[in-house]
């Protein structure tokens, strides 16, 4: 619906305003976020257009990250691509290898726009940085996973908020004992939480070559790490009735189950903080905390999830100037504040965060708790294993993981077998990726 309005608006603009079009330099921006978050993206565009009269950004929602990238690729091949595209974290390696982008670090310096690059949180900057440390894409909507929990249920069960998975299990049992009919933990198998961020927080590798950063000949190794134990625990909790599977295919996803007070715990992005707040049933008393780690592990930082803005190649200078202005606009404290307030996404810069803290932004509901995401992201110095993930065809690898984990949950095979198969199949994806870009390296 939104996109229809936008396209109608764009069409009217094209037909109606020949004179108007000469006044402003137009460029397009395609974004993947949909629903409420998409509306907020659209409003940042309106704010940008209202803030100056040289450029006009035309923002087109594509209803989904995957769609945004697919449609951009199709448009790119036809030479009708947007100047800016919002591309998700998992597609970073694919976009980097394509080479069809204008690195933002370089673009900003080409157009003499001052950006304090050191101001970005390292857990975010490293994810989108080239090997020389310069950012190739602009972090935009950034999040990290959190554990959402129902305070009242925890109190009623006398359970403590868990910092370790051992405590988590104790809490689950207490919740179940206190209220056997309620779903204690609404689980949805998620590579992002269960594999990627889990491995970051525990400092264990997902793949060789420092999770792919050091070359295209990487191989997945998560079937040999602590991840296996974690997934075996997840399966055990499910089999013991401590968790229930909540996915959209089953009619209600884990986030909605939590907000509707069906389940007491769920794991999800901090970006859902605003959504949960808006969707929560009357009187739901809840909070978020960092995802647990196993006892005896030294907790590391988690990394960013979400998406970044990529400026694509083969556009003219005017459009690039406009794009640079828009990115500069997004980086202003006011915009950062607007964005973080209206969504659950975190501010991407230290100064932006400090300013919010100083203003007491995080002291009260509805924003209280969001600072835990920053704590998680900055928990340790970023090390070789906690920079992020640079693995080609990662979307396919995620799919393999999900299918195999489902097979284990359905009782078709053991969790270890499932993860072995997922790794084996995902390695084939990496080999195909390596051959597709034979002789090239990550920028």
């Amino acid at each position, binding site marked *: 619906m939104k996109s229809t309005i936008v396209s109608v608006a764009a069409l009217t603009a094209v037909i109606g305003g020949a004179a108007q079009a000469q006044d402003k330099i137009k460029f397009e921006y395609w974004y993947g976020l949909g629903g409420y978050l998409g509306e907020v993206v659209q409003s940042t565009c309106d704010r940008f257009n209202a803030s100056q009269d040289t450029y006009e950004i035309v923002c087109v929602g594509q209803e989904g990250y995957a769609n945004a990238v*697919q449609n951009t690729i199709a448009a790119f091949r036809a030479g009708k691509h947007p100047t800016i595209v919002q591309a998700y974290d998992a597609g970073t390696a694919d976009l980097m290898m394509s080479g069809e982008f204008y690195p933002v670090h370089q673009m900003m310096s080409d157009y003499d726009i001052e950006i304090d690059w050191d101001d970005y949180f390292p857990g975010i900057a490293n994810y989108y940085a080239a090997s020389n440390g310069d950012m190739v894409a602009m972090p935009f909507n950034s999040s990290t996973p959190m554990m959402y929990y129902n305070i009242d249920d925890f109190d009623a069960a006398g359970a403590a908020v868990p910092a370790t998975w051992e405590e988590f299990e104790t809490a689950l049992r207490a919740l179940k004992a206190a209220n056997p009919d309620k779903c204690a933990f609404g689980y949805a198998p998620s590579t992002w939480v269960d594999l990627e961020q889990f491995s970051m927080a525990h400092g264990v590798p997902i793949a060789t070559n420092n999770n792919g950063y050091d070359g295209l000949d990487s191989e997945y190794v998560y079937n040999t790490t602590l991840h296996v134990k974690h997934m075996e625990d997840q399966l055990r909790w499910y089999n013991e009735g401590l968790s229930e599977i909540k*996915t959209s295919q089953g009619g209600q996803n884990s986030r909605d189950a939590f907000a509707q007070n069906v389940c007491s715990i769920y794991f999800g992005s901090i970006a859902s903080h605003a959504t949960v707040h808006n969707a929560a049933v009357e009187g739901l008393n809840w909070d978020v905390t960092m995802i647990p780690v196993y006892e005896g592990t030294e907790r590391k930082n988690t990394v960013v999830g979400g998406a970044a803005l990529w400026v694509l190649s083969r556009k003219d200078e005017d459009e690039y100037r406009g794009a640079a202005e828009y990115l500069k606009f997004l980086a202003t404290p006011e915009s950062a504040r607007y964005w973080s307030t209206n969504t659950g996404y975190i501010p991407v810069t230290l100064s932006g965060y400090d300013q919010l803290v100083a203003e007491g932004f995080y002291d009260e509901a509805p924003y209280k708790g969001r600072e835990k995401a920053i704590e998680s992201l900055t928990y340790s110095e970023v090390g070789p294993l906690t920079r992020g993930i640079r693995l080609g065809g990662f979307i396919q690898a995620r799919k393999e993981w999900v299918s195999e984990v*489902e097979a284990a949950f359905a009782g078709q095979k053991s969790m270890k077998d499932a993860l072995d198969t997922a790794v084996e199949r995902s390695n*084939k994806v990496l080999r195909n990726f390596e051959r597709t870009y034979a002789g090239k390296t990550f920028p």
Partner: protein
Amino acid sequence: MRRAYFKNNWIAALMVAPQLLIIFVFFYWPTSQAVFWSLTFEQPWGGGNEWAGLHHFRELLTDDLYWQSVRVSFVYAAGTTIIGMGLALILALFVDRQLRGYRQYRVGMIWPYAVAAPAIGLAFRYIFNPDAGIMNYVNQVWDGIWDPILTGWHAMAMIIFAGAWKNIAYNFIFFLAGLQSIPRALVEASAMDGAGVLRRMRDIQLPLLTPTFFFILVINITDSFTDSFGIVDTMTNGGPARATNLMVYKIYVDGFEGQNYSSAAAQSVILMVLVILLTFVQFRYIERRVHYT
């Protein structure tokens, strides 16, 4: 018999040119591209490609899970075709008997075909939802008997019902048209000879319906191999554990989501060959039993 033909071949060529052009642009050109991509490592952003030979085909055909995808596609095709055609035929036979209220009934039967596949998917997702939908009542009586979230064949049954429901309307129109073109005199004559309703259906109507039956069969099978995407995408996402990972859905996931264009192209070529073969088999072996007069 007199045959009409053009003396001037140029005019004939000109007449068929638009049609040929359309077929070329929308069929031969994309197909040739798919074949080409399937033999290379194509970079998604179009930065070039490297020759792969039969690498992708070899990888697919030696992959157990690809064959699993082929297998579930056959199950889906058989399921939707049998249910879709069977029910449509029964409904058409009854409408043809002009039972009371058949006019409203006829209009109502045609509507579902106008519903888009994703909408059907959403509706059936609700109906089969173990927690909130109609199946919830069943689950309340027998706890946990219906679980499409983790039980593969439940999910498969779910998409088969949805797919069949969509096809029933289409099949119904053709069956009804076929039945109505059977000369009344034949049916009436056999009635006078003392044949009952079922007897007339078996001996007169069904044999005379075989051309329609054959046409619907070919269309249904082709359709269930190539047009199941919307239903799978909204209802199951190919899960659980690949139980509904139909070939056409896998092409979408590998190609568009995974950006593995070459493997997806190879899968498209395999699917195309498969559908052509199936259609060939049907014409070769089933059409023999069809009486057109």
